[in-house]
């Protein structure tokens, strides 16, 4: 099956790849079935009058989101973005140039919403919405991970991810949704997390972890669940309860809370930081998923809300939770106001686990022994949503510095990858934005190329053997694709996994 996929060769000179028109044409992740669609309030399957409803929905969004309208109008096809996309670099398909991908929808916008396009479509590159066009949207807007690297280079600041989100939102509204994301959102509403992990299984997993950590350290470190009156509510991706190496970071968080003496709890109802509502560009879903966290925070009476290692969750928390839920200032419905008065505003709300840990290190509340990680020669992968969609530490670039500061405090050997591929220019892991699904494995392997090239370079020059991440998607994606590039999946780990190895426990 997937083993037949081969990784593209590293580029000798990393410039624009030779074009391979149609290379990824027709690539189509599985379509959500009727049950999955209807559970989210979308039509079960492609509606008969999809043409008119697509145009109507587009019109509605153009009216509602000023940004969308500007992004449709502002592009001058300068081409600055064209070679900045990892999927274009990896596949060579010209429709994966961000400008070309956006033009799949922009051409339809021109046809139906601009005067020249209505009268002289051919002259302005406007085209009719046909079934082929709709299928093309489905295909290529699922070959964008909404990582926004191209936006960094756009002289007009067009948020290309928002265009992808709009396209996906339109597709959902006519009954043409994607299985991976929509099935997962259904599970969040039904079970409480993306994984579908029910409460009793979560309890069992956490008890098992307590045993393991006791065995390793001789110390009773708790993984509390649904504890009323805890100070901190930790919201972390459900992959942290399930997958390798994710779970090692969960152990790291627990050790930090233990060593600092902070009472904390996880929640069985909001056992998921991830919010795939952003991936499908649907505001209602985004809000509905986020509201679970407010409900739990109010119920448990916590004073602080902290988010674990999850890229897009931090973007949602940092940029949207305030107005969506009242975690942070901005929302003004009664529950948001209640939560506002409940939370302790001496602390950032919400706070990233890296901010919490770094603050404790700086204040010497916790102590790390970096020698404990001496076998690791580490590099750090900036996650797209953290790098370009959020911040940390309330100063510009904090989201880049703080995770690196933690790594350097927890280990002696750290080397950054090429600066063309880090900080705000970081490359997506290749599996973000709702594309982390087996049926897109070929795209994921190819899209990882630029990150793998940069990794390869630090492996060759510094002997790097540990790729540190702060995102569940990145961790899973790299674990999966590294072997295609000849590397061992065990190279992948979390920042708090390093903290877990190095933190001093119980002897202070």
């Amino acid at each position: 099956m997937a083993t037949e996929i081969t990784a593209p060769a590293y580029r000798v000179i990393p410039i624009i790849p030779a074009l391979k028109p149609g290379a990824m044409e027709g690539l189509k992740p599985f379509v959500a079935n009727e049950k999955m669609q209807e559970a989210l309030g979308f039509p079960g399957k492609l509606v008969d009058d999809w043409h008119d409803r697509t145009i109507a929905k587009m019109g509605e969004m153009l009216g509602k989101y000023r940004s969308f309208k500007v992004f449709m109008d502002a592009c001058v096809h300068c081409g600055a973005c064209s070679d900045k996309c990892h999927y274009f670099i990896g596949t060579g398909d010209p429709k994966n140039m961000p400008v070309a991908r956006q033009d799949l929808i922009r051409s339809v916008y021109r046809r139906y919403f601009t005067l020249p396009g209505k009268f002289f479509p051919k002259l302005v590159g406007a085209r009719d919405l046909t079934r082929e066009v709709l299928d093309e949207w489905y295909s290529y807007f699922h070959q964008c991970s909404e990582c926004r690297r191209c936006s960094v280079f756009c002289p007009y600041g067009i948020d290309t991810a928002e265009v992808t989100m709009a396209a996906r939102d339109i597709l959902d509204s006519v009954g043409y949704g994607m299985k991976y994301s929509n099935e997962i959102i259904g599970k969040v509403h039904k079970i409480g997390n993306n994984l579908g992990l029910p409460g009793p299984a979560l309890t069992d997993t956490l008890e098992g972890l307590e045993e393991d950590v006791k065995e390793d350290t001789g110390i009773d470190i708790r993984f509390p669940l649904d504890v009323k009156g805890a100070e901190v509510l930790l919201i972390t991706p459900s992959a942290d309860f399930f997958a390798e190496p994710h779970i090692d970071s969960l152990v790291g968080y627990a050790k930090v809370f233990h060593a600092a003496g902070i009472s904390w709890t996880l929640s069985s109802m909001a056992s998921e930081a991830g919010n795939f509502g952003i991936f499908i560009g649907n505001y209602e879903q985004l809000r509905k998923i986020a509201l679970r966290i407010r409900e739990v925070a109010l119920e448990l009476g916590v004073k602080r809300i902290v988010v674990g290692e999850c890229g897009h969750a931090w973007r949602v928390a940092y940029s949207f939770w305030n107005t969506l839920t009242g975690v942070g200032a901005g929302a003004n419905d009664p529950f948001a106001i209640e939560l506002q008065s409940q939370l302790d505003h001496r602390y950032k709300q919400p706070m990233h686990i890296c901010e919490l840990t770094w603050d404790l290190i700086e204040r010497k509340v916790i102590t790390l022994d970096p020698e404990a990680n001496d076998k690791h020669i580490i590099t750090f992968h900036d996650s797209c949503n953290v790098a370009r969609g959020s911040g940390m530490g309330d100063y510009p670039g904090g989201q880049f510095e703080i995770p690196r500061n933690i790594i350097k405090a927890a280990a002696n050997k750290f080397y950054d990858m090429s600066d063309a591929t880090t900080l705000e220019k970081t490359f997506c892991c290749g599996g973000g934005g709702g594309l982390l699904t087996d049926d897109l494995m070929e795209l994921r392997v190819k899209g990882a190329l630029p990150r793998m090239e940069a990794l390869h370079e630090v492996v060759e020059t510094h002997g790097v053997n540990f790729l540190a991440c702060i995102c569940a998607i990145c961790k899973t994606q790299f674990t999966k694709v590294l072997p295609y590039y000849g590397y061992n999946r065990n190279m992948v780990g979390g920042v708090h996994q390093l903290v877990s190895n190095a933190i001093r426990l119980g002897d202070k």
Partner: protein
Amino acid sequence: MALDVGGKSIEIDEEGYLVNRDDWTDDVAAAIAKAEGIDMSENHWEVVAFLREYYDEYQIAPAVRVLTKAIGKKLGPDKGNSKYLYELFPYGPAKQACKIAGLPKPTGCV
């Protein structure tokens, strides 16, 4: 979609997972494994049996760590690691072993 097992048609989804968990038998498991390019050994069956047992209790496949621990206890500490499980199920113990065990696919960022 369907999988032919001894002349009987078994419904599977587009990714090869069983649609109805009740359809699972040893023969069905062997047929799914064959489609995955896996020749089922006694060690494979051990893992599959544990997954099914865990699922019956918790309605979800066990975390990889829970699985490795359990296999380590049963088959010896040299086998209680994810490397061993990847040898058995090269596409990953979570997804591929679940598929053969007739369990739903673990979803999310895993």
